[in-house]
């Protein structure tokens, strides 16, 4: 059974899309990640135009983040003050990101921009995660647990505009969350991701936030940044396909619920090393596509821009 996607302007197999949504939802539930960084490349692999994949995925992540943040909010795990500062940065970043995207789309370079961003970010994050999880596995086998400081002091704690974040038990410069938010906003606009895979480590290791509030706070920021990205792409490039987004939303929430139940039964380090491998596979596939000689060196695009 096929379904016609009105903005992507292609017909796709309904069950393929639902299956992909379910599978990525399952993974995101298991690993506690948004899944945008896996879904966007998959959509591109099945023939959705990259620009449509990015903008539509941003829309889907809004939905996924809402259901996530509500659960964390009930448990009081959202630092709204920190989230708001991250959000201000995120809005600025996503405006800059969509501007870059629109300009490069007109130049015919947006597909390259998307692929290169993915190769670089998936490569870095995947490698770091893999090394970290393998180290953790070795450590847990030896049975020694290194005690960590609450948080360390670097040069960044000397920056101006200090603010107090009660929930996160931090007194740091507002410039830090602002610039992290901005970076994530740019990534969100260009790559169609929530950016949790960059923001969560940054919040833990750079800001020193307590792990309990990190996920909820990052989801809070992601809702608004991806909503902004959706709006900007809808206005600038008309690439948000609500039909595709709805199909992905409906199947991924179901997958995520099953995944969450699965995830609690598996060991953390093994889970993370599996995810790292998955990230690296997607990265290698994208890099490979950039390097191998394409079937046809010529491609057609819309004129008159």
């Amino acid at each position: 059974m096929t379904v016609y996607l009105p903005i992507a302007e292609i017909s796709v197999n309904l069950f393929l899309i639902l299956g992909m949504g379910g599978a990525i939802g399952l993974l995101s539930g298991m690993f506690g990640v948004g899944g945008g960084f896996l879904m966007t490349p998959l959509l591109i692999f099945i023939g959705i135009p990259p620009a449509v994949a990015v903008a539509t995925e941003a829309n889907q992540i809004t939905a996924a983040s809402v259901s996530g943040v509500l659960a964390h909010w009930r448990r009081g795990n959202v630092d709204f003050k920190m989230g708001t500062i991250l959000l201000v940065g995120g809005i600025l970043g996503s405006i800059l990101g969509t501007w870059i995207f629109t300009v490069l789309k007109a130049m015919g370079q947006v597909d390259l921009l998307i692929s290169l961003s993915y190769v670089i970010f998936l490569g870095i994050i995947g490698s770091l995660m893999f090394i970290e999880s393998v180290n953790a596995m070795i450590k847990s086998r030896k049975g020694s647990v290194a005690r960590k400081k609450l948080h360390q002091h670097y040069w960044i704690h000397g920056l101006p505009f200090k603010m107090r974040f009660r929930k996160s038990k931090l007194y740091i410069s507002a410039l830090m969350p602002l610039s992290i938010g901005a970076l994530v906003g740019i990534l969100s606009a260009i790559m169609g991701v929530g950016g949790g895979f960059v923001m969560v480590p940054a919040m833990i290791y750079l800001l020193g936030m307590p792990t309990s509030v990190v996920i909820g706070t990052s989801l809070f920021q992601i809702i608004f940044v991806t909503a902004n990205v959706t709006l900007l792409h809808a206005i600038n490039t008309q690439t948000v396909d609500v039909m595709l987004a709805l199909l992905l939303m409906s199947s991924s929430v179901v997958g995520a619920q099953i995944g969450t139940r699965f995830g609690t039964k598996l060991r953390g380090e093994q889970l993370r090393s599996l995810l790292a491998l998955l990230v690296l596979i997607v990265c290698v596939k994208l890099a490979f596509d950039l390097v191998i000689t394409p079937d046809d060196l010529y491609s057609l695009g819309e004129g008159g821009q």
Partner: protein
Amino acid sequence: MTSTASQLATALAVLYALTLAWVPHSQAQSALVTDISSHLVSVTSDFTGTELLLFGAINVDDEGPNRGDVLVVVRGPEEDVVVRRKDRVAGIWVNTEAVEFARVPSFYALASNRPVEEIAPPDVLNRLRIGPSRLRFRAAEPEQMSLPFEEAIVRQKSRANLYSDQETAVYFLGDTLFRTTIVIPANVPVGDYIAEFYLFKDGELLGAQSSPLFIKKSGLGRRIYDFAYDYPALYGIAAIIVALFAGWLASAIFRKD
């Protein structure tokens, strides 16, 4: 709009062809009577392509085994196309050169009862732009090296089943009736199409007919598309509201406590 201009141009071309046909053969007044199985194709959300039946009758006075040749052309709305070429830059393939072409038919299907080169001389085929290779795209800025880019349009469009050239797809039923089917693929561009019928005999154009054909998005897909392009900001806001609601719904359904 370019579609009206293109229709006008096509109408003029057909008119021109008709006058040509009329001068030597003024006795064959209605050499060709034609129709299409449907003048409106609706692209709905479950559209997987369709086939159009194009048929007609020829009226040739001459006796003999040679009853004439029929060419059927379906052209889609014209659009501006940018053709980009990739080159290897620092090990990866990057779009480098680009040539823009104005008024490229988004769809072009040709059917004939035998290879067109046997039906009419090259100059006539070129003038009427019969066949994907004779469409003669115009580069927006005339460039010397645009030929490989033009060939790329035909190649890519053919691969997407948007350009086709079926040389033995027109069937005669008896001496006068003919029919052919043209496949409209699922990825067909929407807009105002035109179906042209040409009757040749011994390399001469005896008659030509054209009829309009509309390919339209309809149903939900149509409404979504129009909304996205006519009211982009509202569409974006609606997409966000849908997402917020879907997220809340999911959380409400799966809430454990």
